[in-house]
């Protein structure tokens, strides 16, 4: 089935490249689901398809997600051979008890080993994902994890506070009372600790939950936060085109079948698009048309996550409107609450979260939806 799935991906990539007229591609990200299902060979095939269908930038950032227990020298070599130049590894914690709680198959030793393998293979852009705010997690345990991560010296670190997503086992356990609800104040302390430690180790906190060494920000993720366009391929993938967001069907079987239904055709003519629109819609589970209002709202909610904030000039260029015209009231109220600030850079003004606002982001975002 993996082969069929990869074939479907190739076809989907090709079809969309025709629809969007082969633009330049600056980043590629292989991830979501269980990354170990896909072989280095498949990644190589897919990257080939991408570079044949799109204008793949020579210096494009090409990331693969990987689990610590999947890492071998061979695998990393193969990945690098196929064009991967960045790896993102889900570490979560360096305390085995919490790894177990999270249902991970790896332990802390696996992480250290995997990291060294990747590093020794010569890859110079590694991201490590961490989670804090776990039930029963004390601050010293978290500090320990952070110290060890800094010792490893990755180029990029993502630190996420645990959210009890609906439908997850942990949330269920908290709801029925067999597990304590994580303490928000403690989580705030953990966040602060992470900021302090990473900042003094030379990392830039360029987004609420992301840190990078200079020049190593994730270009791919910056694309999301700047509310730019992207195409997602595969079951459950999300895409954003001007004025349109859509999501593919989530079942891989359904995905494969609906891709098969798309006629092999010459899709280059825009008029053809209407002809096989129904076939493409078969792949799409859900879509949403975004009017200007919603696009502005998304630009705010996403852009304010970035430390560099939102440039007034960029907003004006994109929407033809002054930021203060649209959100003047909201901005001044939030400034009063010390959640937002405006600073001047050369001739431009920039809107961004204050340090306090960063941890209270939702209170700010709420005002822009």
């Amino acid at each position, binding site marked *: 089935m993996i082969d069929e799935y990869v074939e479907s991906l190739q076809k989907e990539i090709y079809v969309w490249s025709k629809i969007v007229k082969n633009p330049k591609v600056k980043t590629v990200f292989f991830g*979501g689901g269980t990354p170990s299902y896909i072989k280095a060979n498949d990644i190589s095939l897919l990257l080939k398809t991408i570079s044949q269908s799109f204008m793949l930038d020579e210096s494009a950032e090409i990331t693969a997600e990987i689990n610590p227990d999947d890492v071998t020298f061979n695998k990393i070599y193969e990945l690098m051979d196929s064009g991967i130049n960045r790896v993102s590894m889900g570490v979560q914690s360096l305390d085995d008890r919490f790894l177990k709680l999270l249902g991970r198959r790896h332990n802390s030793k696996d992480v250290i080993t995997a990291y060294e393998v990747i590093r020794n293979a010569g890859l110079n852009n590694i991201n490590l994902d961490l989670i804090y705010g776990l039930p029963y997690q004390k601050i010293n345990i978290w500090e320990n994890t952070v110290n060890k991560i800094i010792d490893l010296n990755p180029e990029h670190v993502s630190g*996420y*506070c*645990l*959210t009890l997503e609906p439908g997850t086992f942990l949330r269920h356990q908290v709801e029925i009372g067999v597990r304590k609800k994580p303490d*928000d*104040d403690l*989580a*705030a302390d953990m*966040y602060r600790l992470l900021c302090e430690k990473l900042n003094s180790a030379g990392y830039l906190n360029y987004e*609420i*939950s992301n840190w990078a060494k200079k020049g190593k920000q994730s270009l791919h*993720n910056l694309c*999301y*936060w700047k509310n730019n366009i*992207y195409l*997602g391929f595969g079951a*459950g*993938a*999300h*895409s*954003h085109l001007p004025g349109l*967001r859509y*999501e593919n069907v989530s079942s891989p079987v359904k995905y494969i079948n609906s891709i098969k239904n798309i006629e092999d055709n010459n899709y280059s003519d825009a008029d053809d698009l209407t002809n096989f629109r129904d076939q493409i819609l078969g792949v799409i589970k859900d879509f*949403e048309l975004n009017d200007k209002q*919603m696009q502005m*709202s*998304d630009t705010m*909610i*996403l852009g304010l*996550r970035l430390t560099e904030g939102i440039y007034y000039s960029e907003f004006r260029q994109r929407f033809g409107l002054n930021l203060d015209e649209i959100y003047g009231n909201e901005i001044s109220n939030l400034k009063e*609450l010390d*959640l937002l600030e405006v600073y001047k850079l050369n001739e431009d003004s920039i809107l961004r979260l204050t340090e306090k606002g*960063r*941890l*209270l*982001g*939702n*209170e700010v*975002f*709420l*005002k822009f*939806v």
Partner: protein
Amino acid sequence: MDTENIRNFCIIAHIDHGKSTLADRILETTGTVDPRNMTAQFLDQMDLEKERGITIKGKAVRMTFHENGEVYQLNLIDTPGHVDFGYEVSRALAACEGAILVVDASQGIQAQTLANAYLALGHDLMILPVLNKIDLPFADPERIGSEMVQLFGFDSDEIVLTSAKEGIGISDVLSSIVKNIPPPKGDPKEPLKALIFDSSYDPYKGVIAYVRIFQGSIASGTRIKMMGSNSEVDAIEVGVFRPNLEDTGMLTAGEVGYIATGLKTVRECRVGDTITTSSNGSYEELPGYNPQKLVVFAGLYPSEGESYQSLREALEKLQLNDAALSFEPENSQALGFGFRCGFLGPLHMEIVQERLEREYNLELIATSPSVAYKAIAQNGEELTIANPSEMPHPGQLNKILEPWLLATIITPSRYIGSIMELMTNKRGNYKRIEYLTQVNAQGDSSDPAYDARVLLEFELPLAELIIDFYDQIKTRSQGYASLDYDMIDYKEGALVKLDVMLNGKVVDALSFIVHKDKSYALGRNLVNKLKDVIPRQMFEVAIQAALGSRIIARETIRPLRKNVLAKCYGGDITRKRKLLEKQAEGKKRLKTVGQVEVPQEAFLALLNNQK
């Protein structure tokens, strides 16, 4: 008909002693209601009345009864039994010459029996004692009969034994009515004097006045005058209740019936008022006209802001049949737009609230009820305070008076201690104790019915009665004690206004007038509760309870430090935006006091807690 053959009477009883069933049997026996149309509790048409076994709305019915070759006109006036409707009861009693006093042969005399019987005696009514439910296995007519003899001085052979349920003794009751209740007096040739003892609203005929003609007569089309309210209308229809309205064109002295007035509101047609003719009318009113006094007040708010208009309409409709209900628009920061309503008592309030919710499908939030205080200012001015927010500043106050009542409790003796304790907690003053019966020597001593039955009297502030009192009496006596009360007077009290503040701003829905000795406990309680129900804000929130400018309790809600989506990548945006939209929608429903956002449920939790 010759007044000699008219009998006007009512039935008085404690709740569930069988008043309505007895009325049903009387209606059947006299052939007033066709058995095919008979439903249980025929006169109690409201669902709420049937369910609770109480009479809320007064009614009247004319019956024809044959005995010893004579034809009698019997007028049964059904009255609400509860003290909240005491004034209406007293007007109904004033319209009668006799009363049937019904007592449950197993439960014995209860507090309400006593109150109503005394009221009837006060109106010089002939009282016919009836022991009902004699068919029940636990009935003890002998013992209960001796209670009645002891308390009211009846002869034991006067007491009629009945089982209204089984139809036993009904004709004895009817014979006793004819034999013992005196016929009405009053000259049909004198100027008209008709007592309004109740009223209702009919969409076609307007306000219908329920009347007892004391002298003179009235024909339809006559111009009439309400002497108390001084308003004049044409009597568009005159008739009797059989039990539906039956146009007879005429009513004369001694009779009970109705006058349709065409009035659109009950305000000009008050219970207790006297109707006379516009020309050649009486100059003298019947005694006892009093505008009804509202003693309990509460804010009623729709739980959804949009239902404000529906609430107004519902109150207006309700008022058509409930002249005592009063309401005025009120605006609360915390609860939005609503009405400050005045009630005759706690039961009246409960009934109005329940009718609004059931008959008009409204969801209501009621503020904690308050009694009508009198504030005497330094300059001697007297203010009636129906809402804690109207209370003058302590500096301008000379004193505050609060309404007191005399509470009568009848209980098996084993609960005396517990009830005494409750009374002490409720600021009650013990007045007296009376043993109604001695220990039931044949009984089982583990059964409360074995105990001597005791009457206790206390004076008590009304404010203590309207919050969690009745339930306490029931709990403490395992349901055996009964309670009745009567307003007595206003007395000076060490009362203070307790305010709750959020960051220095008073929360209007949470101000209380409370006895000084209880203010600290209440303040502490409110502050603690609020701390649990107010979500953390982006700044520190001080919750304070204050007496005037003096803070008596304080809690702090520490500022919210963290609320942010940890992750937001390509696949998350739509979902997270929807989540934020939902949260923003929720925020709109928050009430803002000062800068503090409080969910309405928080107020609800606190107000329910005070009931």
